[in-house]
């Protein structure tokens, strides 16, 4: 009798393991959360000191178009810290790359999932996965030695600019968008296709009216992920965009992105000075944008659940 009571009162071996497992995963989780929070807190505190410590107006920073933090404007007694050219440049290359890459990505993934499934999964899948894994410096180097001279010989100028950046980013985000689109298309239930074909739709009608419609939220998510990658890409873009903090006049004039100005300037400034603080503010914008991209993906996922 006592034996049974004791057994019932004590934690069993499995319960102990259960709480151990719980503790281990909780520890892992809290470590990650602490890391994320401290990164946010650090970048924010540095980035915001431009506004609070150095007294720069948010409006001047976001909408000013002259960037030269080490020079003070004699009229306003404020340094030239207009970040609009970089913000504009970042968004422009990101959107252009996404716009160009999306049709190619959808076409490729349709071919892989609907038209030639066997060849698609056997040949294309590994190729796409390989493209995802190529380091960005390789893309940048190819851009510098192939794309830039090509643009220069076709359009004149120096060849550095938004267009070269877009071409390099297009190749970089294409595999990301493609592989995610493939997954989405594969997850469209088989009976959707069967029903469409059964009522007499051709293959193209089935793809266009059923499969793509059902996969739209997933495809949008894929595009946003591609854009997030393009927005945060630093090295490859820096090598081909020309890094001039100027509003681009056209697609072949040198421009800059948030990341390219950041990587160029960070080693040449002194921690705690205004020139350094404004770079942290650029980093803060990048961080906030990646947060926005994440929220957009979540919103798409929630709204677009298949009905």
């Amino acid at each position, binding site marked *: 009798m006592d034996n049974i009571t004791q057994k019932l009162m004590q934690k069993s071996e499995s319960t102990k393991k259960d709480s151990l497992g719980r503790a281990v995963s909780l520890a892992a989780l809290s470590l990650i959360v602490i890391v994320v929070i401290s990164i946010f807190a650090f970048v924010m505190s540095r980035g915001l000191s431009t506004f609070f410590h150095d007294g720069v107006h948010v409006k001047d920073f976001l909408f000013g178009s002259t960037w*030269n933090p080490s020079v003070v404007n004699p009229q306003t007694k404020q340094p030239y810290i207009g970040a609009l050219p970089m913000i504009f440049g970042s968004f422009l290359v990101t959107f252009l790359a996404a716009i160009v890459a999306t049709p190619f990505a959808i076409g490729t993934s349709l071919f892989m999932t609907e038209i030639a499934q066997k060849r698609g999964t056997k040949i294309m899948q590994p190729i796409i996965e390989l493209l995802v894994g190529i380091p960005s410096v390789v893309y940048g180097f190819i851009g510098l030695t192939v794309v830039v001279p090509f643009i*220069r010989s076709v359009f004149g100028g120096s060849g*550095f600019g938004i267009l070269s950046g877009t071409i390099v980013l297009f190749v970089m985000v294409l595999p990301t968008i493609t592989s995610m689109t493939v997954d989405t298309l594969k997850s469209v239930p088989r009976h959707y296709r069967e029903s469409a074909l059964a009522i007499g739709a051709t293959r193209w009608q089935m793809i266009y009216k059923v499969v793509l419609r059902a996969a739209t939220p997933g495809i949008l998510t894929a595009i946003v992920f591609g854009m997030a990658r393009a927005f945060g890409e630093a090295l490859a873009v820096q090598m081909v965009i020309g890094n*001039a903090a100027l509003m681009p006049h056209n697609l072949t004039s040198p421009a800059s992105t948030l990341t390219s100005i950041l990587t*160029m300037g960070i080693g040449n400034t*002194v921690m705690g000075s205004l020139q350094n603080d404004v770079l942290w503010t650029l980093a803060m914008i990048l961080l906030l944008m990646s947060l926005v991209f994440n929220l957009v993906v979540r919103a798409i996922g929630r709204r677009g659940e298949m009905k």
Partner: protein
Amino acid sequence: MSKSHRGTIIITIVAVSIAAALGTAYATRDKSTSGTSITAVGSTALQPFVEAAGEEYAKINLGTFVNVQGGGTGTGLSQVSQGAVDLGNSDVFAEEKEGINAKRLVDHQVAVVGIAPLLNKDIGLKDLSTAQLQAIFTGKVTNWQQIGGKNKKIVIINRAAGSGTRATFEKWGLLGKQSIEAQEQDSSGMVRSIVATTPGAISYAAFGYIDDTIVAASVNHVSPLNKNVASGMYPIWSYEHVYTKGKPTPTVAKFLNYLTSKEIQSTLVPKLGYISIHDMQVTRELNGNIIKK
């Protein structure tokens, strides 16, 4: 293997590998506090020199390590004034860098570097005056024809704002004027290859980067040669500085003496494209005064 043991085994493996990683990290940790190691951080232009000299130094002084990192002039100066590193390498006087309290730093000039304007070969010019350089880089002239070259648009390529090469070029080549906003590249090698391939391009780089893919223009009819810098004829040059916080410790002072020793200054310095401080027939003060030695 029974199922209930699998979890324990995995946890053990993870724990052991974390312990091993930390252990290795601890065993191979940077022993910079032990006094036999000198850490230098800063200018990428000066990095190859200090690195090469450091290796030589470690060969003669066994047990002493010189750890050299890049990061840029700004990083070097702020790290050394915080006392985080022993030596801060800089292309400019600490007084010229904003946000640095130069009073606490001691300057050691270890080399001189000359900077030449680089032109694309098709421009057809071999000599520029400082007035012309100023007009080009401030955007007053936009075509090479306006100053006697071929009918080609001027394409300006700058180094990153805050880079030592750019600061020196603006101070002595543009006589203190700032360049207009233009393309920026973050290394001299990159600048040279872009100037070589872009029609109408102009930039600037240290003498060490001059080769026959580009034209290194003479300034005010003085060719960019080491001997012209040494005599004070050629205007665009700067000292390479190594800063210490306060008086250097004996270990650091010994290394600094080694850097400026006859042996290093006559072998390593010219080999890496710098000019020896012993060759200089003039000295230039912070305010630009040139004094004959």
